[in-house]
């Protein structure tokens, strides 16, 4: 039983008429890094809220580490296991100082104060925000606030963190800091990450990409596979990572590149053999190797 999250035939509707999610079947394994993509209104946030019992499925079941979200007595156990980080960094910081905000969940859970201190310090250290522990939230940058929000979730020692477009309101530097934090939590602490995003380059870092469209799962597979289907992604109203886009353009101009280029590193690897050839060979034989 290594699934931390599993959706079984989940239907969900906000108003009883239109369904926001249709018949979702999805398993996420412990320690996985899953990116969720989809245009606005495709049901990504709804999916996220179903995971930690903010919303309950209309029919079907959502299991978190084997616990059914429909069981009210398990709600807080589930929320302890699955932390959530939202898009707007301003609207999820509750307390007036960074450390008190990180402690908020622990205060709610009734953790004893010396233990709380230890966990707050270690969470802040993990996200690299220790030196800001006494700052007021409005004095932090967007990326810093978002890392504080991650620390606030991390303090609960969750097994899984769901991030709903955490980088949508950030500048490139803040974005990188947040994604690096999520990556290191996944790689070093084995925390399962579900990252909802509009940035294909962030999705390219995941172990698996799930694409939603109109409340259904349109694609579900490793990023290399999903992003190789350039036309399919365009049809779903989505792009592909910059490197994949470039590869597509180059292919269109007759340069023969291998499939599955999605990161700049892949691109470098694919192109570098060309550079070692003589100029006259280069034009004729592209990246054929």
């Amino acid at each position: 039983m290594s699934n931390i999250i599993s959706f079984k035939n989940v239907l969900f509707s906000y108003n009883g008429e239109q369904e926001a999610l249709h018949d979702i079947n999805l398993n996420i394994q412990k320690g996985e890094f899953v990116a969720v993509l989809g245009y606005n209104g495709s049901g990504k946030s709804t999916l996220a809220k179903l995971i930690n019992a903010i919303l309950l499925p209309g029919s079907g079941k959502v299991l978190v580490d084997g616990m059914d979200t429909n069981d009210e007595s398990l709600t807080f156990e589930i929320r302890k296991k699955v932390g959530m980080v939202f898009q707007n960094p301003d609207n999820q910081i509750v307390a007036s100082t960074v450390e008190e905000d990180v402690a908020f969940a622990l205060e709610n859970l009734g953790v004893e104060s010396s233990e709380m201190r230890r966990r707050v310090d270690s969470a802040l250290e993990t996200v690299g925000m220790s030196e800001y522990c006494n700052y007021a939230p409005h004095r932090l940058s967007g990326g810093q606030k978002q890392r504080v929000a991650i620390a606030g979730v991390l303090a609960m020692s969750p097994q899984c963190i769901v991030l709903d477009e955490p980088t949508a309101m950030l500048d490139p530097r803040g974005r990188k800091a947040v994604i690096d934090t999520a990556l290191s939590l996944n790689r070093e602490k084995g925390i399962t990450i579900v990252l909802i995003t509009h940035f294909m380059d962030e999705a390219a870092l995941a172990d698996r990409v799930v694409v939603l469209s109109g409340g259904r799962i349109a694609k579900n597979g490793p990023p290399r596979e999903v992003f190789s289907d350039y036309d399919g992604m365009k049809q779903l109203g989505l792009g592909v990572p910059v490197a994949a886009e470039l590869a597509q353009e180059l292919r269109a101009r007759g340069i023969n590149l291998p499939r599955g280029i999605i990161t700049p590193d892949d691109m470098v690897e694919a192109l570098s053999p060309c550079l070692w050839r003589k100029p006259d060979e280069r034009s004729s034989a592209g990246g054929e190797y």
Partner: protein
Amino acid sequence: MLKDITIGQYIYGSSPIHRMDPMLKLIFVIAYVVLLFSASTTAGIVGAVAFSLIIYKISGIPIKLIAKSLKPIVPVVVFTAVINMFFIPGDPLITIWKLTISRQGLFYAVILSFRITCLISASSLLTYTTSPIQLTDAIERLLSPLKKLKMPVHELAMMMSIALRFIPSLIEETDKIMSAQKSRGASLDSGKLREKVKALVPVLVPLFVSAFRRADELALAMECRCYRGGEGRTRLHESHFSSVDAFGTAVLVLMFGYVIATNCLFEAVI
């Protein structure tokens, strides 16, 4: 433009007064006011005034700031002093037209001025040395016995602290909306009062809408972090009765002893 509004008047510091338990500080201020008004001899009042001066010195709050906090109440002090001066009967001192200032009246006016001044400076000292959030916490703890009477003390304190947390965000937002409206040709700072008030509507409406959206998202974030009211909640900064608190309590008890002693020993002047 709105950036430089500060909330409360907390001045960061690490003096013993700053470090004292906020709830205890709150109680002490109340106790001090009682002390101030129960001292009825010259020695007692002088002692109480000197006490507040010493506490100010220890807190490291610049004297300029007390002056600032006292400024708005000067008219009140002068008014009450003058009224008392003329209307307390006693041995006549000066007579101006039909009004007579008595010796007792003058004395009473002076003492009353001292009392009001000390009262205001003591409560300002509380707000200078305690952040609004600490103060909210202190009020919650002080009122917590009322929870037994089903008063929503925790909820009120939570609301207050969230309001305090969001004031800077909302100010920033107001600034943004004002700029946005100005860039669309709204004139916000010119015209008659009526026009100015009218011009505020396009600022306030989006502000309210956004505040409600924020509230919605914040509630969601709180729920995700297992918030379920005050029941069984613990705090990161649990207050322990520290040596500063013990020392403060001892000093205050001594002060009370002193005032009671002077009240018994000397003749009351008031």
